[in-house]
């Protein structure tokens, strides 16, 4: 499977350095290594979700209890989470650090991903969510640190879009 394990490790290490100790995720091909790392890490609680919107509630509860968390999801999972993002996280000013695999963008071969790719950034814009596309592994640690800083200072969701260039090797 040509998902980059090297870059996944860089991302995971950056999440750990940012103090993240609760990670929620629903399986997705590009996230396979990240989810596996969280599962194997005794310092991190991995919450396996059955629907991505659950992750909004889990991150909200973790935040209220003083813990740092991150959400791993595909962009279609972001679409599934919109109600929770709007009517819980944004209504109550709760920071979310969302790492979103950006399927359906340039280079996508799976037809079923393309509609989600088409609307991802526009949905984020419509929701007023600041985001950055991550494509350079050398900047990944900075990107994660800065996204977390902004989420916590603004008390709002912030998204990092994990691009094909970062996650896929072929």
């Amino acid at each position, binding site marked *: 499977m040509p998902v980059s394990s090297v870059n996944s490790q860089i991302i995971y290490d950056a999440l750990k350095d940012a103090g993240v100790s*609760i990670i929620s995720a629903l399986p997705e091909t590009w996230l396979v290594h990240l989810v596996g790392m969280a599962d194997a890490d005794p310092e991190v*609680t991995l*919450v*396996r*979700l*059955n*629907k991505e*919107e*659950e*992750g*909004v*509630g*889990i*991150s*909200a*509860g*973790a*935040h*209220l*209890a*003083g*813990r740092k*968390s991150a959400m791993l999801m595909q962009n279609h999972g972001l679409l599934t989470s919109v*109600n*929770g993002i709007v*009517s*819980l996280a944004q*209504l*109550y*000013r*709760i920071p979310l650090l969302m790492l979103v695999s950006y399927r359906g963008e340039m280079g996508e071969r799976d037809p079923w991903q393309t509609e989600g790719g088409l609307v991802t950034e526009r949905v984020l814009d419509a929701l007023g969510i600041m985001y950055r596309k991550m494509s350079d592994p050398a900047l990944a640690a900075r990107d994660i640190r800065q996204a977390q800083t902004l989420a916590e200072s603004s008390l709002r969701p912030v998204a990092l879009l994990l691009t094909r260039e970062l996650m896929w090797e072929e």
Partner: protein
Amino acid sequence: MPASRPPSRYDSLALISRAFPDDPVVLTCGATCREMAAAGRRDNHYYIVDTMGIVTPVALGLALGMAGQPGRRVVGVEGDGGMLTNLNALTTVGYLKPENLLLVVLDNESYASTGGQYTFTTDLDLADIAQSCGLRPYRADGLESLQSALSEASQAPGPSLVHMKIAPGNAQVPLLLDDPVTLGDRFHRWLAGSMPG
């Protein structure tokens, strides 16, 4: 002897409030929030005024964040409609098995906040479903048995779910129109102050 008529939501919430004065209590949207606020506002109550079905994940996140604090529970109060709209969250809880999580479902077999349309719990047993998902189920059929179920569930390792049928309909109480940020902030500060260390 089972109660001849199920208790009201208002009386059930007042009992839950008295049973957990020092633990976080997460409340589902609509009539549950406003009746609990009318019964007596407390800083340990987290009033979720929208996002149907999110109580269980929020309570799970709190329970994970508060793991290892002896004697403390996180209580999530959900309705039958809210539980059904996000039933997958019960399977997430059952898989992870946080011992400090206690869910209470006040089941009036209807969407009472939106006009009383019936839900599927006329035919489904949410305590059975919870048990299948890996939670410890408790059944109450009146205020006395609710009291003892909450007490038993608080002493055994969770995750647990206390299920009780309540009467349909809502108490005539004011809407909860406070700014949600203020509501949430009050709870957040209370919880931070109640943490050990």
